[in-house]
């Protein structure tokens, strides 16, 4: 399990989630993204292309981050969901809350 943050040339923060996003590590992701938000970043992509599974705590932290980023007039996009994760977002109706793209590149192009 690992989170990576990098900023592209236009200032978008791309967060990679390797392994899983669950109750045991969600605070680490939240802290990293909030630090970037406090430092002035406003556009974020979370890339799940290397993510195996996400539990409801992981979904909850994404909802929380989305709200905090929007409060700062920022935008959060999600990318790289595999078929099972896409289904998870659809059944929880969180696909209606997030901008979701097939790849991180598509998310970057949409900003």
């Amino acid at each position, binding site marked *: 399990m690992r989170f990576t943050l990098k900023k592209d040339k236009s200032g978008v923060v791309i967060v990679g989630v390797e392994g899983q996003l*669950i*109750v*045991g590590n969600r605070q680490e992701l939240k802290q990293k993204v909030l630090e970037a938000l406090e430092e002035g970043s406003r556009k974020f992509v979370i890339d799940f292309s290397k993510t195996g599974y996400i*539990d*409801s705590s992981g979904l*909850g932290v994404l909802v929380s981050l989305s709200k905090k980023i929007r409060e700062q007039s920022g935008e959060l996009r999600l990318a790289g969901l595999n078929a099972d994760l896409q289904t998870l977002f659809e*059944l*929880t109706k969180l696909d209606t*809350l997030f901008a979701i793209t097939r790849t991180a590149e598509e998310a970057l192009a949409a900003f």
Partner: protein
Amino acid sequence: MRLDVPSDLGMVGDAVELVATHLPPGTLSPRRISFNLRTALAEALGNAIRYGNGEDPDRLVRVYVELRRDFVRIHVDDDGQGFDASRLPDPTHPDNLEREYGRGLFVIRHLVDDVAFNEKGNGICLTLRAG
């Protein structure tokens, strides 16, 4: 397989991997082990540790895995007072969609074939049928 898990949320991922990687191939497809089983077990363990045992380090969550030819059944028991699963709000209702919590049991019900609770409400049993 029996496993005692400390009431530490940081142990959930390791406990899930321990169970998932010790299931012999055949009953469940690799995809269902990778996603359905791992996600549902992480939910059940997280709920038991946080809400059941209140993250009390002196309390354990007990996991018991039954492996049969046609199903895998996982029991997760905590030391809490239990809860009434029928009284949980619908997390997909528009009023609840932006809440951070409250999706755990909803997610479990969609990932496994059967969910049952013990009478007290502090034990959950997840059944995944073969396939």
